[in-house]
């Protein structure tokens, strides 16, 4: 069982790196969807065999939301505006991959310094969560397309969600539901906005959004 958890967590890291290194936006969205599914499966295996209907409900919801609903929304957004590739990011793809590798290391370094609760099953969970979060921030800051910024925000949320998994026993499921719903609604608003921005600016590049200053 623990092996499975490690494999899932490593696949989360790999999807992060895939997003950092890919040009086509389709690939990026698929990677985020895969990451969502991996994170959704995680709660089932994380606490050994102490399953409850609550765990399954959360897993089901997260997989549906992060693995299918949000990616569908994003696919539709890029289909409507016919954008295919991430172009001229602030930092090149190779450089951001290297930076991403560095952030994984940083995640491990930071979490080894934290006094963690004893009952965490996998030693990888917190480092993976922190590095996913940091890579999400990296994507938001360095990418030039509005869609990739949204993906970065999703990665950031995924990292925070993974961290939250050490608390699944403590947090009431109502809150988890509310959190997921908010994130979904956030992505929905961003997707709608993306359409309006494309209509007005005829582009989805963040560089065009530079009228407001001072």
């Amino acid at each position, binding site marked *: 069982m623990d092996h499975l958890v490690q494999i899932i967590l490593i696949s989360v890291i790999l999807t992060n790196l895939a997003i950092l290194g890919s040009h086509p936006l389709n690939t990026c969205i698929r990677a985020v969807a895969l990451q969502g599914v991996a994170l959704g499966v995680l709660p089932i295996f994380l606490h050994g065999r102490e399953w409850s209907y609550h765990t399954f409900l959360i897993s089901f919801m997260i997989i549906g939301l992060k693995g299918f609903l949000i990616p569908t929304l994003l696919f539709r957004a890029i289909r409507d505006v016919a954008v295919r590739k991430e172009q001229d990011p602030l930092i090149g793809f190779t450089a951001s991959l290297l930076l991403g590798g560095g952030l994984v290391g940083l995640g491990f370094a930071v979490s080894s310094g*934290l*006094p963690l*609760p004893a009952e965490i099953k996998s030693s990888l969970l917190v480092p993976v969560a922190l590095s996913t*979060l940091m890579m999400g*921030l990296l994507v*938001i800051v360095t990418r030039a397309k*509005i869609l990739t*910024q949204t993906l970065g*925000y999703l990665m*950031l*949320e995924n990292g*925070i969600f993974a*961290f*939250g998994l*050490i*608390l699944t*026993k*403590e*947090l*009431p499921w109502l*809150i988890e539901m*509310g*959190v997921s*719903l*908010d994130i979904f*609604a*956030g992505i929905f*608003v*961003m997707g709608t*906005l993306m359409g*309006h*921005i494309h209509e*007005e*600016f005829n582009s989805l590049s963040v560089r065009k*959004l*530079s*009228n*407001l200053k*001072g």
Partner: protein
Amino acid sequence: MIALLLLITIPILGAGIAFALRNNKKRPWILVPVAIFHTAMVSWFWLSDSFPTLGPWLLLDSMGKIVLGLISVLFLGASLYAVGYLRQRSERNNRIFVASLLFFLSAVTVVTLSHHFGLLWVSLEATTLASAPLLYFNHNQRSLEATWKYLIICSVGIALALLGTFFLAVSETAAGPVENPLFLPTMLHHSSSFSVPWLRASFIFLLVGYGTKMGLAPMHTWKPDAYGEAPGLVGFLLSGVLTSCAFLALFRVLQVCQAAQQADFARPLFILIGLLSMGVAAVFMVGQQDYKRMLAYSSVEHMGILTLGLGLGGLAIYGALLHLLSNGLAKGVLFLTAGNIHRHYGSKSVSSIQGVFRRLPVSGVLFMAGFIAITGSPPFGIFVSEFTILRSAMSDGRWTVVALFLGFLALIFVGMGRIVLSMTLGEPAGNQPQRGVEGATRAPVIEPWLTILTPCLLLVSVFLLGIYIPSWLDRSLQVAAALVGGHR
């Protein structure tokens, strides 16, 4: 209790009706009965001195009651103004706008009631989402850019607050499992068993996260864009209602820190970030060319003052709570009249506007009075609250804080004064062709009463707060301030 349930659901119901209605002219009128109902309920809580609860996590406490009272009154004013405003903008479909306004009211109500940090986060994020459609009501390039920046900056900020919330839960459960974690009242009870490193980390993330929402420097960058491009009405709701809710969240965090004996860690950070916000506001205020962005920086300044008040503690907490009220009221006067001026002149640039006194006498006088009020001149409420915070800093012997506080206030007064004077005084530019004798002044414009009434009433209330604080309000402020060790 059923009252709280109605308080939350009636606005949502109103939003549903607004969404279903097809008549663009009649739709804004839904706002008024909902707002009146909300205010009536909240005043009943005040009059009967009751603290109702709903379910396990929603309950009204003395601090929540103050913020709830403020937002209810502000929303009532905003709803009256909205009817007048949307009548003038009848060419735009206001379906989503009205529905979002009502959903926003429901979300902020939950914020004030929520005593669970998870629920607090959920409802604050809901307010961000509810206000995004409000910001791009105008659907032009500039408002879309502002909305995108607002959404991405606030979402990232609030995501960090979620991480901070998780850290808080780790800190709470470090010594063993607890019943009902992240629930404020139980947290205050067993605060001695918290893990201190996690609590401190959590404080930093919550400060950054909710500070972004509140618009504290250096996380304030969405504010000038959003307030600059949004309709004056929305600027008013964000600067008076939304930021008050974010302040409430920081207040709750301080409650936990105080109980866990970590207030000495939290307070200096509050002071630092408060003074930084005031400083940034002062720098950007001088030489500002856009009067709506000027108001945004004024909001950054006043959020800084509130945070500074939290940081100083003691008497300053009382001052900060008073400041919360008077700032919300005074911001309404400024944003709503700035909206009137913008609609009439069609420009946000200071250099292209002269003679507001002559062209729009009522809005001009209100705008000027609002400027006098917001910069802390007597006899308005802001003078009293700023003076209270200053007195607290003096009696603690924090002379650096006193000097910086006064210096920034003076700079802001000069910067804002330059803009407001050049706008209001002088002759209106003859950019519109005039009939009749050359050089004759155009007759002043009679403004619709609905767009004038609210700023008038708000100005009167901020004036009343300056000369007399009723004993019931004084008592409530003292009780709320005592939650984080404040006193009168």
